[in-house]
């Protein structure tokens, strides 16, 4: 249990990144998310904006920054669709808040925690989207829980390779 909890000073420190990365990484994630489905078709089982949101929320350990990052990413995704703006915004806002809140309490440098956190938050985000569609908006949304599972697995795999890559850009004192 001591492994999972953040009991050292290093574990509780806030990760800092270059300022352009806060812009470039979300934009690249949004663009790639918009481009790859053209290549991979229906097999694009990942959500890069969500992965970026979780990463920065975990790294910054700030729920407010995580919520704004998630809200921005979600609204941006919604803007690229024909759906109402705010569906993914709400879902990713919640995801950013939870990721940052969890990052305060546990060791986010652990790979397994990162993968599990991505997996759980991906399922939660998908559940929030379905909830908004079917409950708040009252829109018939055809969804498949297996696809949600694949998306969660895909996000975990992407995070497995993307998080170490983004860690290289950390600004250390």
């Amino acid at each position: 249990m001591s492994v999972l909890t953040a009991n050292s000073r290093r574990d509780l420190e806030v990760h800092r990144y270059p300022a352009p990365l806060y812009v470039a990484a979300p934009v690249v994630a949004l663009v790639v998310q918009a481009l790859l489905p053209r290549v991979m078709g229906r097999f694009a089982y990942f959500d890069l904006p969500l992965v970026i949101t979780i990463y920065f929320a975990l790294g910054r350990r700030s729920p407010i920054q995580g919520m704004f990052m998630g809200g921005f990413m979600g609204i941006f995704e919604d803007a690229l669709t024909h759906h109402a703006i705010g569906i993914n915004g709400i879902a990713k806002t919640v995801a950013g808040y939870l990721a940052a809140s969890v990052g305060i309490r546990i060791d986010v440098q652990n790979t397994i925690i990162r993968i599990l956190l991505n997996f759980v938050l991906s399922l939660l985000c998908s559940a929030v989207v379905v909830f908004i569609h079917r409950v708040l908006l009252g829109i018939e949304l055809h969804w498949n829980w297996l696809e949600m599972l694949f998306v969660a697995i895909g996000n975990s795999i992407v995070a497995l390779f993307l998080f170490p890559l983004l860690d290289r850009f950390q600004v250390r004192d």
Partner: protein
Amino acid sequence: MESFFVRYRNLLVLLTLLLVQIIGLAVQVRRIDPARRSLDSADSSGVRLIRLWANAVVAPVERSLEYSKTGVFGFWKNYIDLRHVRQQNRDLQDTVDRLRLEQAALLEDARQGQRLQGMLDFQQKYLYKTVDAQIIGTSGSDQSRLFTIDKGKHEGLARDMAVITADGIVGKVREVFPHSSQVLAINDQSSGAGVILETTRIRGILRGNEEGQPQIVGILADARIKPGENVLTAGGDQIFPRGLPVGTVEKVENDPDRDGFITVIIKPAAHLDRLDEVLVITDTEPRFSSQQQKDIATSEQDKSADAAALSEQRKASAIMAERLPGLTDPNAPPKPANPQGANGAPATPAATVVPKILPPQHPDRFTPGHADQPDQQAPASTPGPRPPSANPVQKKPPTPNSTPAPKPATPPKPNPQPQPPRDEQPQPQSGSPPTGPGRGGDHRDE
């Protein structure tokens, strides 16, 4: 109060953000058909503005990436992927060249096969023994119409053998080597072949002129020789069998050296300048096919059977003639006791046997013995000077064949034909006039 906001700052921010977005969703959602439970597709100006911004951010990147992808793919497709195109092009060009050569070879083989098939057909129909040969070279000079064939002494070739094709004669074997031979074409100036014009039957000697055209020389001027007449081998030169096609008369020219003689230019039947395969006549004895030999054997058997039957018939006729007494003249002198001569040879009969003359079926005034009984020809009760004939046949007009000769009655010529047996030809009574044309009819004709 301040500590409340500080303590629950994160949660309050979360609720605020969620509330704002939910309100935003509520503003965007406009139901137009509760039954369809679908949203209005029309966006408000604010939402459209957000979409425009998002699109403005993503579209340039997407466009640049798309262009980059197109450029990368184009670079890959046009350069990287075409690295071995030159080599492949060279390989394909080599393949095309090789295939062209193979095609040309196959085409040539096909043509050669057709030619050989035609020659084989001709050879099978030809009655002489021949050897097919391939032309492998020429003399290389226009002054020497000589070419080399791939068959020689070991294949049975010899000098002065005729060389022909299915179209006509080609030349004759001039020199024979173990496995090759030289053939002198008929259009060489030193060649010679006896030929005959098919229609006019004019004979001449065929040889080549300076231009390599075969011509017939030494012919007296004859207006009957026309272009297009076929020329055949005459068979008198002991080289070419008789009747082989030589060519056709192309034109007739006066012999510049000798007055009254002409030169007949021949268009050869064989393509002397495009020869590939020829036939060499190695034996002029007729070579019949199996069917022809079978037919000949059958014909010989039939001929033998006919000869045997004829011999038997003659023998039976001789026996019959000996047994029949009517065939001998009773007034003839008796035969000598020894029918053979002094040397043992059969003796020639001394007197000619005169056969007995049959009574004429239509006696007339020239018939022997007719003048002695004139009254018996016409009945006495005939009132008119021209009594009608009892035989109506005499009323028909005379024919040139039936006109009697106006010469007096002569003794009849002895009939060389053997007399038929007496029992087969009944003899009429002597002196009785036979039924037939009477004298009155003859008078009327006269």
